[in-house]
């Protein structure tokens, strides 16, 4: 392990850094989908006549949108369970931020070296999602209730893929420590596993991040804003902030688990960012090309894809463990 002072310092640095990268990823998703849709989207370089008014770039536009919400009035509905309604967004944010501390970044191992860090990180990510369901349920709105129910159903199936995928890797690498996995070597068999488990993880990420065929919890044409219908102002901003952190966290987890050793040394940083870019591009492509499923179809689709793929993953992982 590295110097404790460095670890503490990096723990402090990673939070703003994760926020910045998460914002950049959200920006890329918005910009790329806009270009796919014959739109302009948020600007990399502002038109010269608008520069004095709007600044040279709108790279941080997703962040500005969230900050704007912090300046708005926060309304708490009378019929809500006030305490749960108000605390859930913050708890969700805390869990997401804590999860990030267990996922390595190039040059910063953070807490990923502690025993069982893989399990801790995945539990924290799940807990964050859980509180993004509990708050809406406490709001007393029928739209939120339907949205939360859909979210639970989707969460169950997408989480299945997530867990199967990360544990296949853990079995093959014989470790539950993210740092060890991220430092592991590569071989042909492991590359095979990386492809299979990576696809499964990507599929699970679609559901966890509400990428397009699976965004039915927030289907605005059907259930208004879904779980977030009654949220406004700071509380809504907190939920959006959580989403940014989770986007960063999942991308970072993906890279450290499936593309070792990109997340270890500072020297890998350019490749790390490239991998993140490719991942974001894939997510955007799926988002742009697809309409939304019904919840029933989505679950069927997940079960059809995730169970065979998950079993295949486990077989490969066991084979690597026992034979190689």
């Amino acid at each position, binding site marked *: 392990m590295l110097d404790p002072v460095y670890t503490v310092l990096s723990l402090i640095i990673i939070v703003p850094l994760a926020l910045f990268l998460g914002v950049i990823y959200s920006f890329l998703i918005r910009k790329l989908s806009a270009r796919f*849709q014959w739109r302009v989207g948020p600007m990399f370089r502002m038109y010269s006549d608008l520069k004095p008014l709007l600044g040279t770039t709108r790279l941080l536009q997703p962040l500005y949108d969230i900050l704007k919400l912090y300046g708005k009035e926060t309304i708490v509905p009378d019929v809500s369970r006030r305490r749960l309604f108000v605390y859930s967004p913050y708890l969700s944010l805390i869990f997401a931020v804590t999860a990030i501390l267990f996922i390595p970044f190039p040059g910063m191992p953070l807490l990923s070296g502690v025993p069982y860090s893989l399990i801790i990180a995945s539990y924290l990510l799940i807990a964050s999602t859980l509180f993004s369901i509990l708050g809406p349920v406490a709001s007393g709105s029928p739209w939120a209730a339907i949205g939360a129910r859909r979210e639970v159903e989707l969460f169950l199936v997408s989480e299945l893929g997530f867990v199967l995928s990360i544990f296949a890797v853990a079995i093959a690498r014989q470790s539950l420590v993210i740092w060890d996995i991220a430092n592991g070597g590569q071989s042909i068999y492991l590359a095979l596993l990386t492809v299979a488990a990576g696809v499964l993880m990507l599929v699970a990420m679609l559901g966890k991040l509400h990428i397009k065929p699976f965004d039915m919890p927030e289907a605005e044409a059907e259930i208004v804003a879904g779980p977030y219908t009654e949220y406004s102002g700071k509380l809504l901003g907190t939920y959006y902030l959580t989403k940014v952190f989770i986007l960063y966290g999942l991308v970072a987890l993906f890279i450290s688990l499936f593309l070792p050793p990109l997340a270890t040394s500072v020297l890998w940083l350019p490749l790390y960012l490239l991998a993140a870019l490719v991942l974001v591009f894939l997510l955007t492509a799926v988002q742009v090309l697809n*309409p*939304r499923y*019904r919840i029933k179809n989505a679950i069927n689709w997940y079960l059809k894809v995730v169970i065979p793929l998950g079993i295949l993953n486990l077989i490969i992982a066991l084979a690597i463990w026992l034979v190689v």
Partner: protein
Amino acid sequence: MKFEGAPDIAEYVKKEIYPDGLEYVPLRENRVAVRVAPEDLTKVAELFVKKYEARLIHATAVDLEFKGFEVLHIYDFSKKRDRLVVVVKALVEKDNPEIPSIANITWQAAWAEKEMKELLGINPLGTPDPRHQFLPYEWPNPVESGSIPEGNKFETPASATQTKEMYLPLRMPIEEAYQSLIPIGPYHPGVIEGQIVYVKVEGEQVVAADIKTGFHHRGIMKLIEQRGYNKGAFIAERVCGICSAAHGLAYITCTENLYEAEVPDRALYIRTLLVELNRIHSHLLWIGVVADVIGWKTGFMLTWGLRERVMDIIEAITGNRVNYGIWRMGGVSRDVSQELAEKAKRTVDNLKEECAKLLALVAEHPVVKSRLIGVGPLTKAQAFDGGAVGPVARASNWKIDVRADNPPHAIYDPKIVSWEVITDDHCDTYGRTLVRVKELLVSCGIVSQCLEYLAKTTGEIRIKPKSVPAGAEAVGLNEAPRGELAYYIRASDTDANLPHSIRIRTPSYRNNAIIPLMLVGSNLADVPVVMGSTDQCLACTDRVEVINEKDGTRKSLTWDQLINLSRRASRC
């Protein structure tokens, strides 16, 4: 071109269709007005609908001052004889006006009868659904403020118990209703305009549905009645911002049927051109809206991108993008030059290729298919009884198209312009998508044929209209992008410039009425898709008397006050 009916049409109706009428008056273009006694209306309806399979276009009533109310049932007989429309009239007295309801015979009259009751007070006896359609359910017994107690317990106000069946969505007991009803509307992101669709859900399954309209009233019919025939064309266009050309043409068809009209051929081609361009952009808009409703933003953006180009062509031709303002009695006001026609033809041909590519993508996308197939089923029998029109009816394999059956004053003669009526046997939202996609390509074909003619020839575009005879009546039909659009105008007995009354029946008026039928049994996720599948245009549908009620005092606004209000609203 002159528009004349067969000379023997009144005798034909008397002999072949209904011999017991009191009076037979032939109107222009094979339309016949038959006067009957009010109590015979059900008999006539039964005979027409059951025996001849005639279609009720609209049921309405006209206020004839001291003579009483004249109830009109307009039936379409075009399947039996070319262009034949029978207007059945019955005079009822003003004190205690009552007519027998025909909604039990043909359900499509239900909304029309409710409208008669709400606008004029004519009571349909034995109607299956006595609740209000356009007025609030509570009317005229409003809920007193404070009568809804705190918490989740709702009590029925004393005044409402007497008219309980007029008061309840889905006629559920209030306690039950508030627990499991989901109101989609009046303002909801899935539907752009204001209406309420109540759906009762169990889980995500819809077990009952009901629709309530009455959220925008603009008094269009009254405005035309006050302004005369020429200005009416501009107001009629403003009934709907999307199918404005269809409204313009239907209105002009109707007014031209009031007198002996003659229209130059070139004007007819320009009319066809505009109506079809209008249809293209309306269908592109619809495909975009459905893509948006099922969550496919990309499809939405791409189709609306193509739509912009159609709008650009329309702008080049008429100078306007939304309301074209070129409709005149006896022709059109603006010519299309030969160069412009050639240029537009090239653009339209390019556009047709791109549309074909994009729409093939839409129609074959697996997720789109999984969202549309089997959603909002409507059989042909249901479509006939409910009175579906336009693409909704044609997607249920029912071949009705006003352009073929009862064409408006434009060029739709299959000998001159080659085109076809599209039908589909899917009987669901996917079928409606396919019908619209194919119709759009057919419309592109008609447009390029019109432009070809306009590029080759020159000629007059307007012949001065003659004066309208007193007391004339006319029915004007047109196929709007959403379906059959009907206008009925009765000329004033004293003033040659003013209509006595005008009645508009828009296609959405019909298609909205069958939405609850299609909703039952579907998934909650499909509710906006089904609602969108009829391409509803609610501003066309609503027609309620404006009464501004605050603190129990009634105040109706004058025209000037309304203008001042709108100016004040738009200033800030």
